């Protein structure tokens, strides 16, 4: 049932694409503002999360799984307020992917940052950092399933 996840993300991508370029950053800022705080159990334990070193500012990822053969995936991402674009993209991934099945997330295209229509607004370096975050999530899932 890969269509489910892609549908959620597709809606988000459409939300970005429907906006003029200048307003897409505003939408990304909303995702940045609304990025959920990591649960209490991670407070002060960022070292137990995976650092996404490809990002320009410290960003930490944790992936949790339900106890099923094709588990439901919960994403937890911690990014500092001085990195709002990274936070924004993390927010998009959490809204689009968290709560979905592992098998579905693995079908998501790798070039989501480009599909949001931000390639002119953001530097290639930052876009690559965003792609790396998605890549890390997929790798974590692949390792968990193996």
């Amino acid at each position, binding site marked *: 049932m890969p269509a489910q996840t892609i549908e959620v993300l597709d809606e988000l991508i459409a939300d970005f694409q429907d906006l003029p370029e200048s307003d897409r*950053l*505003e939408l*990304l*800022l909303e995702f*940045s*503002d609304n990025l959920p705080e990591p649960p209490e159990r991670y407070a002060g334990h960022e070292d137990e999360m995976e650092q996404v*070193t*490809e*990002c*320009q*500012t*410290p960003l930490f990822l944790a992936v949790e799984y339900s106890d099923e053969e094709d588990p439901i995936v919960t994403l937890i991402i911690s990014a500092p*307020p*001085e*990195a*709002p*674009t*990274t936070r*924004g993209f993390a927010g998009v991934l959490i809204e689009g992917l968290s709560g979905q099945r592992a098998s579905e997330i693995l079908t998501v295209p790798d070039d989501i940052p480009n599909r949001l229509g931000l390639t*002119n*607004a*953001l*530097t*290639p*370096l*930052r876009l*690559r*950092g965003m792609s*790396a975050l998605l890549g890390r999530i997929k790798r974590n899932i692949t390792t968990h399933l193996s």
Partner: protein
Amino acid sequence: MTTSVPVEQSDYAHPEKLVSTAWVAEHKDHPNVVVLESNEDTLLYSTGHIPGAIKIDWHTELNDPVTRDFIGPEGFAKMAASKGISRDTTVIFYGDKSNWWAAYALWVFTLYGHEDVRLMNGGRDKWIAEGREITREVPDVTEGDYPVVERDDSTERANKAQVLDSIGKLPLIDVRSAAEYTGETTHMAGYPQEGTLRGGHIPTAESVPWATAANEDGTFKSREELTKVYAEDANLGQTDQVIAYCRIGERSAHTWFVLRYLLGYDSVRNYDGSWTEWGNSVGVPIVVGAEPGQAPS
């Protein structure tokens, strides 16, 4: 009608170029002052900025998307006017990352001969650390009156051919991290690879990482400390022409500012092509390892 803005006192060579957060707080609403925030992260301004400050985005507003160069004279005049800047406006720059991009934007304004440009010491982080007011409110801008002026790349900017010709003749300062200088990596720690094929440095370049000029809080070190770092440890002396470079020209804009205005070197050029250009260029020499190396014969 020009309304002159007072200059802050310091013992730097050009004290008028650097202002404190307290000075900005006091003068930011002066009718002839425009405060520009220039960040690496384009969304940062939107999360809160100095009241009255206007955003300038180095990536989308200073670069020409076609020529891989800065915007031309007409584009610059239009951009400046849109931010309420006229030719005699005092423009204060500040930003994230210890003012890298603020120094870079200030440097581009300098190429266009905008005379009264100043940097806020310590940048955005210091303003916030001091608990000073920030806001998300974007100010209304009254369009400035900015003339179309030619950019002068001859005095503050170096291109690849000039750098190639300078090896063995002029001092070169590599401001990247030690690991980038030796060639161990082609990028700074925590940053992804940016597609540079070779690691190393330009032959004869001295390694003086940009952070050597900065205190923990992002402010600049004292003139005495800076003199030791550059004039003594890096053997620059006082009369040399200098060229600084980094990876894409932003960290070296920071060093350019130090050498040009805090220490008063008359001829300092920023090579903004930097390692992303040099490390990929066909037919130019590099050196790998901790030593500056020799000029090719």
